[in-house]
């Protein structure tokens, strides 16, 4: 019968297309691991680049990315959790709340390079921070807000209503209920969202181009008002801006960045899975 045949062909075609999606992902990761693993060594992680970046390690860039990630966390977490509590527990379904939601959706959609322009205009120039760790952290922090807000709101909403009802009925105030019942239950989900957001920020290049990243610095930053090297920008620089750059250093840097970001994704997934297992509701 013809339509049975069509069904068979369609099944095969769909499977092939799914393979076309999945196989390149595996290839990309294997390709970087295979080409980069040989470069990884103690020196690669602990030495600064030398000889016009062609030798040595990535220490200042890696350290810069870690510093920026912490800065991003400080800038984003309080605001994001506050906004998530507002949306999940306090916001009424009115026009103001709709605006907040539209704002968050659009924050998530603004191109990363536009965040870079905003950071340049507001933090570097208007607030006078200059190209600095604080300007870069604030820019990345704002970019990270929508991811953390959405994940935290989801985690807070997932806490069963009974927890709130019982707490309130025992005489607790609304804030006591949130603080002692809702937030502890939602915490693993909030942490998952934070790690995912920070992982994304750690790998970003465009927002730090004009706000913090330095091509090469002979010294490590001394304060939050200094520039720093950063791993994503370093990879961009050594792969496109330095002629005659040895390939193994490029692959090694790409591998370290990939491992850094993917390990954060992995930790987030583990926290989430652990939370689902432990949960009693």
């Amino acid at each position: 019968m013809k339509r049975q045949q069509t069904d068979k062909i369609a099944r095969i075609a769909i499977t092939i297309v799914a393979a076309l999606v999945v196989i390149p992902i595996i290839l990309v990761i294997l390709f970087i691991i295979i080409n980069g693993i040989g470069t990884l060594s103690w020196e690669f992680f602990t030495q600064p680049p030398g000889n016009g970046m062609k030798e040595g390690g990535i220490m200042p860039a890696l350290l810069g990315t870690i510093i920026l990630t912490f800065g991003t966390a400080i800038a984003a977490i309080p605001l994001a959790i506050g906004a998530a509590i507002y949306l999940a527990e306090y916001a009424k379904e009115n026009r103001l709340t709709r605006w907040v939601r539209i704002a968050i959706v659009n924050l998530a959609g603004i191109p990363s390079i536009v965040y870079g322009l905003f950071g340049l205009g507001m933090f570097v120039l208007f607030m006078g921070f200059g190209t600095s760790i604080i300007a870069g952290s604030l820019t990345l922090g704002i970019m990270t807000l929508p991811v953390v807000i959405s994940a935290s709101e989801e985690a807070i909403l997932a806490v069963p209503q009974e927890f709130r009802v019982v707490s309130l009925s025992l005489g607790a105030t609304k804030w006591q209920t949130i603080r002692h019942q809702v937030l502890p239950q939602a915490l693993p989900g909030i942490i998952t969202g934070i790690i995912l957001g920070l992982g994304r920020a750690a790998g970003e290049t465009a927002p730090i181009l004009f706000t913090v990243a330095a091509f090469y610095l002979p010294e490590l930053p001394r304060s939050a008002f200094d520039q720093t090297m950063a791993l994503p920008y370093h990879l961009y620089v050594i792969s496109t801006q330095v002629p005659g750059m040895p390939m193994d250093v490029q692959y090694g840097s790409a591998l370290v960045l990939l491992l850094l970001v993917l390990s954060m994704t992995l930790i987030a997934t583990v926290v989430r899975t652990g939370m689902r297992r432990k949960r009693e509701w």
Partner: protein
Amino acid sequence: MSATKLETSTPDVSPPVRWGEKIIEGLIWAAGLSTILIVALIFIFLLKEGLPTFLDIPLRQLFGKRWYPIEGMFGLASLLAGTLLVTAGAVIITVPLGIVTAIYLGEFAPPWQREILKPLIEVLAGIPSIVLGFLGWVALAPIIQNAGAPTGLTAFTGALILAYMALPTIISISEDALYAVPKEYRDGALAIGATQWQTIWRVVLPAAKSGIVIAVMLGIGRAIGETMVALMVTGNAANIPAFGADIMFQPVRTMTATIAAEMGEVAQGSLHYSVLFGIGILLFLITFAINSLARKLVGGESVRRKRTGF
């Protein structure tokens, strides 16, 4: 409700005002509303630096073909064409791939495969764009050049990588859309003798149409805004590509790549500097329109359930 009434009628037993809590709740309220303020600030600062673009350059010249900043020619047409070409290419690749993968995950894949594939797609979402740009630069571009293109750095190279970058979003939204189709539709179709493919093609996909439209829109939003991949692999040639069969295999320059490539070299306050912010204003407005519209289509309550940050 009755509790509050009771309090107001007997004020002497009402609890004392907890000022600490009032302050905390005020801060939470402020944090929520700050999101609106931030979007406004982003737009205000883009305008502050970029407004001269639209005031000082005649519109005809601004949307002209020639982008030669050194000679004071700021025609955005070639950059718009580059962005349009790369974005259209990415969407044409990513949407069918994403929808079909979602169909495979939802309708055909056995549970053990889903257990592997879903985390793998999340991994794809986690790969930094600079790493994919690097791979495009060192690995994909040579392949495309060997295949016969005059250079490996083309609109197609960028479109292909951007398509894969958009896939996690597209797959996730398509899955939600397919999942939302009532089971009765499938059962009904299968019961009257349709094959599984006929059920999907004639019943499930049409019912999931609005979700698929949203997937297309968000794919566009993603691809328009991507910077580092566009900067590294699309060739950095601010020309309007010649129309023809090889239109996708010519080097182009996107709006995002132009900002990234030139902002480091311009004098602050110069017209060139303003125009780069002006391009930022256009990008902001385009993505704002797309995301607001997509959100409207998704409809109120379901939005907060999306994993994609959308």
